[in-house]
């Protein structure tokens, strides 16, 4: 048991574990000390100094986020000295900051703005330093915009990129008054190893890192009477959208989201879940084919383990970091891109709409999907398969713009075709979900029986944030045509967050792991913690989203991808068979080795 420390904060005696900080001790007492550089997902930096407090018998003011408690400490969080110092610090940050809030995308959801309004900083104590700074705005990237004029140099993005993602596309450069957050050589985000995962965007307290928004383009399409605007919604959007509209984390808002999209004027409101299920069929068969090639044909060229390919941040990461392992990636497109390719072919045919008049929009928990949609290879329908990608946050803004009272909306159903879903598709939104969905189907294909887990819940593969989860599923009593899999222990590994992905892939590269199937999601917790999800984010919020996802799965009448009636139908009417000719043309892709440096 940890040693206990007694201290006094604002006159209240408190006992906490040794090693806790003043900030944590104060939060236990519901005393809110303001912070900016502090983020609970990240290591402590202690550089913004907004959280300073007064400690009796100590001349300087310690930063509450960085100072561990000590026995007998007497702390004042709201003394005259503290108030003056904090106000000075916020004023200093504002003097270096392009505080033209009404022109800022983060207006209303900015931590600096929040502090400025709390501290009544209207009088601008100090000189405006912005005119002398040569700030740049990097607008070259299709996913993320970096605006140095809004940056307060808290380094949350730098820590995110390094600690959570092991990418370090962003770093700190120069020093003194020239110090800035920079990519290598101040290149555009487009030209560096950035994966567009958007985790930095999720943690940026101001508008320095934001998604490139396509809201106006989507409105234009909606207002254009010649266009049929199709929208697809990813699994993780429906459990987080409520947060962007004032609801508590963990609310499932699927029906209200559909209602809202219809009221916004989308012509067809469809579900990415449909292609998530399709992904399972294609990817499951791909895995089984690779296993057969390896085990039966003894083909030395078959790339195993096979890794999932749904997460575009992960795809760009592996292209940069492990280009030699690209053959190990499933060739399946992500559900978004499968959907895009089918909307302008299958859907267009069925609904008798000229594909050139279809505008395909997707709502994603993700910023990397914006980059993915713009990949040159993502035009297999003959058109740009997905025209515009909006984040959960952008959809939230559109709903507010339209004046919809979100919570009061009725629950409505997705349109058909390409609107049906299963529980297996829903759990794509959580780490371990693709693995679980794939196993529910593959096991049944091979054995003819349901996976031997209570209520189809394959809990051993349900990943957890911050860890790499390994599991083995024994395959027994297989159907005759799968006899080569009899008794095989299918070794699976699930990782979320690119730092963990890196560990897994290093082991694969170095021959230290003998997995068959790898699931990687670029973001902490999977898509539910995606870079396009509502801000703020933290472990507690993400765990509530995760509970909502599995709750939604449990509530679905169909929970296995291969039982999705529309999936069955599309193979019958259009695709013919998994991994068939049409599938290859529309649903599979190839990857581009990229420079690591």
């Amino acid at each position: 048991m940890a040693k206990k420390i007694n201290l006094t904060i604002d006159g209240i005696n408190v006992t906490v574990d040794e090693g806790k900080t003043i900030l944590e001790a104060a939060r236990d007492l519901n005393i809110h000390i303001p912070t900016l550089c502090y983020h609970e997902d990240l290591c402590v930096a202690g550089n913004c100094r907004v959280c300073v407090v007064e400690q009796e018998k100590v001349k300087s003011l310690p930063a509450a986020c960085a100072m561990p408690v000590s026995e007998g400490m007497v702390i004042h969080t709201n003394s005259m000295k503290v108030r003056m110092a904090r106000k000075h610090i916020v004023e200093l940050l504002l003097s270096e900051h392009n505080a033209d809030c009404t022109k800022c995308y983060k207006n209303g959801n900015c931590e600096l703005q929040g502090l400025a309004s709390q501290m009544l900083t209207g009088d601008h104590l100090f000189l405006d330093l912005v005119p002398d700074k040569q700030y740049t705005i990097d607008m070259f990237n299709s996913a993320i915009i970096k605006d140095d004029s809004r940056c307060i140099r808290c380094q949350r993005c730098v820590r995110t990129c390094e600690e959570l993602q092991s990418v370090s596309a962003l770093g700190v450069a120069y020093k003194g008054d020239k110090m800035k957050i920079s990519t290598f050589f101040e290149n555009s985000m487009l030209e560096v190893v950035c994966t567009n995962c958007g985790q930095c965007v999720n943690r940026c307290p101001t508008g320095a890192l934001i998604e490139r928004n396509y809201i106006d383009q989507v409105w234009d399409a909606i207002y254009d009477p010649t266009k049929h605007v199709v929208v697809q919604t990813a699994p993780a959007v429906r459990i987080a959208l409520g947060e962007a509209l004032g609801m508590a984390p963990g609310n499932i808002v699927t029906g209200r989201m559909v209602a809202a999209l219809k009221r916004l004027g989308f012509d067809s409101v469809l579900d990415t879940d449909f292609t998530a299920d399709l992904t399972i069929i294609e990817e499951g068969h791909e895995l089984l084919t690779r296993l057969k090639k390896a085990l039966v044909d003894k083909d030395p060229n078959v790339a195993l383990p096979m890794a999932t390919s749904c997460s575009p941040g992960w795809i760009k990461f592996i292209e940069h970091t492990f280009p030699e392992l690209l053959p190990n990636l499933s060739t399946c497109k992500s559900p978004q891109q499968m959907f895009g390719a089918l909307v302008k072919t299958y859907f267009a045919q069925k609904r008798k709409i000229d594909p050139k008049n279809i505008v395909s929009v997707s709502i994603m928990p993700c910023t990397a999907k914006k980059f993915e949609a713009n990949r040159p290879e993502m035009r297999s329908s003959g058109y740009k398969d997905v025209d515009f990608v909006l984040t959960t946050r952008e959809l939230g803004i559109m709903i507010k713009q339209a004046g919809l009272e979100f919570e009061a909306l009725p629950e409505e159903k997705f349109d058909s075709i390409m609107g049906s879903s299963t529980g297996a598709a829903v759990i794509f939104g959580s780490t371990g979900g693709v693995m679980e969905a794939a196993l529910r189907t593959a096991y049944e294909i091979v054995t003819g029986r349901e996976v031997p887990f209570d209520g189809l819940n394959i809990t051993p593969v349900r990943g957890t944030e911050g860890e790499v989860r390994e599991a083995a599923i024994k395959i027994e009593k297989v159907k005759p045509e799968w006899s080569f899999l009899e008794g095989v222990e299918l070794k699976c590994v699930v990782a979320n967050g690119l730092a963990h992905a890196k560990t897994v892939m290093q082991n694969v590269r170095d021959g230290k792991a003998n997995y068959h199937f790898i699931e990687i999601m670029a973001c902490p917790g999977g898509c539910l913690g995606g870079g396009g999800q509502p801000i703020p984010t933290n472990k507690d919020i993400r765990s509530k989203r995760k509970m909502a996802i599995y709750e939604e799965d449990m509530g679905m009448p169909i929970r296995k991808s291969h039982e999705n009636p529309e999936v069955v139908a599309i193979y019958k009417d259009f695709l013919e068979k998994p991994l068939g000719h049409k599938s290859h043309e529309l649903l599979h892709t190839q990857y581009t080795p990229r420079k690591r440096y």
Partner: protein
Amino acid sequence: MSEQTLKRVDLIFGEYSNEKYKILADTMKRSNEDILKDLLDSGLRGRGGAGFPTAMKWKFTADTISDEKFVICNADEGEPGTFKDREILLRVPRKVFSGMAICGKVIGASKGYMYLRGEYRFMLPELMKELDIYHEHAKNLGLNFPIEIRLGSGAYICGEESALFESMEGGRGEPRNKPPYPTTSGFMKKPTVINNVETFVNVLMIMRLGPNQYKKLGTTDSRGSKVFSVSGDTPIPGIYELELGMPLDRFVDEFGDGDTKAVQVGGASGFCVPRKKFKDTVIGFEGVPTGGSMMIFNSSRSMYNVLHNYLKFFEEESCGQCTPCRVGCQQLRKGIVAVKKGEKKAVYLDQLMKLSESMKITAKCGLGQSVANSFSSIVNNFKEEMIY
């Protein structure tokens, strides 16, 4: 009154033994407890400027259990007006290496490093030769304590101990949060003693003289001698070893040009003392402490220019990570320019004074905390020069 006079001393640079590394060899035969006791009795405080008792620092580190410990000699002398470490390293490098080796023995360190500022790279060949001689003697003494020299590359902040560790670890010289302190988590997160060049020489001289004789130098609060770097408006600029605890007026009598209006004690991060306060100012830990920098200004100098030069220095040399220091330095410099130009009213100086006070209590490290020293002492004492 021996404490009131200016006494030259020849402790640091003087030759005390004809035999190379004799004092080191003698000290190696003593117990660690004995050595620490002598250090404690001597009252030695660090010579880099902050003045932490050396014996305590060593004892804390010795008491920390770890598979690896380090001794680091901070030779990143960057404080404007300071150049004494260069002279010490040029003239008596063996004393420095000996002091480091004694520290290595006392705390149980496996390795020593010297972090030499990049501006002193020209000294490297000579120091490397000396280091070879040290290693030879160490071998003869059966002493396994190698010393390596690491170079800086032009960054004042790396003189701050935790920034120095970051730099040695291949990073940006950004100071760390404290605690943990170097005694438990320093270079490579291992317990580390980091001392100034001059401190290590003092250690050696205490070993040579014994604490009682050493203690005869200086005052109760400031034992021993100090190497001063004297520059500015003086007919005799240079390096002087003087007893600590001297009154500033005696110093000015000896070093000034007869027209001294202010002395900046302790460099850009120190205090500016105007003529009227010379008499009441004592140089030492009981008065105005200094790492050795004494810059003398005569009445022809604009104290506005002096302050502007310092602030420019801090604006550029701040590591930039913490708000008060990064932005505060810019605001202070631009603020005095605005007042001087008449773009801001004179009362804006009061606002800046409050800001400097905030910087003093909120900045992450000593750099940002000490900008207020020169700012407030110059603005308070030379307000007219700031405005007109």
